[in-house]
């Protein structure tokens, strides 16, 4: 009897162990997928470097993949990606962080219950719809009031991208601001500081790592966003000289040209190689965000 009891217990334990291992296996799926993405990007992208050197690919000023002989220089695409992201950030960082401060500190409970869903719905609008809006509503408007040749340009794309990254910046910053220990705030208020002084001197410094993470992830979202830059940025492979120049960021180039590129031809490989560069950019952003949020983790009052 006792022996049998022991046996069932050990069967149960073995089963438990198997289940645990199975869950562990599934949990590795995300990493496995990430690995596969890297593997296949490189497999399809590397062959282009037999035709062009890495240096010429990255810093070549001309992207004419269908000419004869073709030019595979993605510098204009990289410059376009960096400039739309930079301009979008100038708009989205203040708006995102200020909205987060409003939600976490200034808004009453009732207002927050309304504003938070608005930010979430803004995040939920499909990128193709924002691109469509930028194309058919905002571009003609921009063209008319500024009297420029085309409304499809760097500025328009940046503005649309900004509103796509605001929700990311806002919700992550808000979490960080919200999790600042109440004692810090109470101490500051008790010393006679106003609410704003408390926010500026205590709450923001205490949550700066979370806010930075939010900003980096917001920028990562902007640089990788495809449909908006595909539809709104204008598509010219020029290194932008003005805010109202049409540009062609990396994702736009990949999305627009992949359908026409002959399968496993040089153009096809060059687009995958562009994908590698884009992937490395976002990977860098994400790793920095991860580093910042872990290194300067908010641990209670110890952050100050």
């Amino acid at each position, binding site marked *: 009897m006792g022996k049998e009891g022991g046996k069932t217990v050990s069967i149960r334990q073995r089963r438990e162990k198997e289940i645990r291992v199975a869950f562990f296996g*599934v949990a590795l799926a995300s990493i496995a997928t*990430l690995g596969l993405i890297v593997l296949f990007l490189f497999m399809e992208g590397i062959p282009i470097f037999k035709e062009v050197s890495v240096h010429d690919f990255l810093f070549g000023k001309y992207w004419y993949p269908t000419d004869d002989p073709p030019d595979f220089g993605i510098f204009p695409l990289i410059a376009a990606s960096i400039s739309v992201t930079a301009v979008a950030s100038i708009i989205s960082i203040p708006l995102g962080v200020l909205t987060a401060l409003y939600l976490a500190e200034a808004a009453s409970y009732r207002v927050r219950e309304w504003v938070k869903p608005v930010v979430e719905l803004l995040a939920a609008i499909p*990128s193709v*719809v924002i691109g469509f809006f930028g194309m058919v509503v905002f571009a003609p408007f921009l063209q008319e009031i500024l009297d420029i040749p085309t409304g499809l340009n760097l500025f328009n794309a940046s503005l649309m991208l900004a509103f796509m990254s605001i929700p990311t910046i806002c919700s992550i910053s808000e979490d960080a601001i919200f999790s600042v220990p109440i004692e810090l705030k109470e101490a500051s208020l008790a010393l006679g500081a106003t609410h704003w002084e408390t926010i500026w001197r205590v709450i923001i410094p205490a949550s700066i790592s979370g806010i930075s993470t939010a900003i980096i992830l917001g920028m990562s979202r902007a640089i990788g966003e*495809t449909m908006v830059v595909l539809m709104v940025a204008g598509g010219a492979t020029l290194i932008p000289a003005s805010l109202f120049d049409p540009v062609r960021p990396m994702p736009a180039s*990949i999305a627009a040209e992949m359908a026409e590129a002959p399968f496993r031809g040089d153009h096809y490989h060059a687009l995958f190689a562009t994908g590698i560069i884009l992937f490395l950019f976002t990977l860098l952003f994400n790793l920095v965000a991860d580093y910042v949020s872990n290194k300067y983790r908010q641990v209670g009052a110890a952050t100050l």
Partner: protein
Amino acid sequence: MGNERVKERLVNTDQSNGLQGRRKFVQASMFGLFRIAATINGVALLIIVYFLVARGWRAINWTFLTQPPMESMTKGGILPCIVGTVCLSLGAILVALPIGVASAIYLNEYAKPGRLLRIIRLGINNLAGVPSIIFGLFGLAFFVVWLQFGVSILSGALTLGVMTLPVIIGASEEALRAVPDTYREASLGLGATKWQTINRVVLPAALPGILTGAILGISRAAGETAPIMFTAAVFYTPSLPSSVFDEIMALPYHIYVLATAGTEIEATRHLQYGTALVLIVLVLGLNLIAIIYRARLRRRMQ
């Protein structure tokens, strides 16, 4: 003498009022700035929705929703696109939900803090940060070409599925975290094993939260364009899909195609607005359901 004192006090209060006043003014203006920032977001949402509704509602009627496109997509409806988007997003959630929930169970119930957990989390965070067009390239190279699924619902759903995975994992983890530890302790105290506890106690308690995450995942998958451009969606296909290996039309891709590549971009403007309106009603509707459902859950928990 007394008069002077009073005077002095008045001067003092005056001074402190000035300082106090300035501090209050700074605070009021900063809070005003916060409010303006929040308002700008709301206005942006309103403007986008307003233009789509104002210019799109006339396109929407019974024919539009139940007929395929006609006369080289200058007339007719968007039924194949609606069917395609529903197939793709349901397919994506079929892929992402089991894997995502199981991952979340491992992370929240089994894993012990340490290097391994750090690496898994880093993997998930980075997967969440991969641009949608990269998922498109990956789907093309892996599902379409290497696994030979072709341009099909299957390839598209798998691509969208791996893309939605981090969303599902995040939402499920949050739902599992919200289950009080006392539930687990009570079940384990009664002699249940860890798996029995998870299966019979923790998961049922976390289910509503997980479902909310699933709804958000569906809405995310339904709105994505870049991942399906090379893996599932086509310009035009006359018939509705009959198997998972068929290529299909999809709402987001249809908007893109009509707005940029059609032969008569201006003439089909109303169809573009109509399609965008249908997509946004679908996506925002799903999101509203999730938001309201979650608010209710929170209230019940309190």
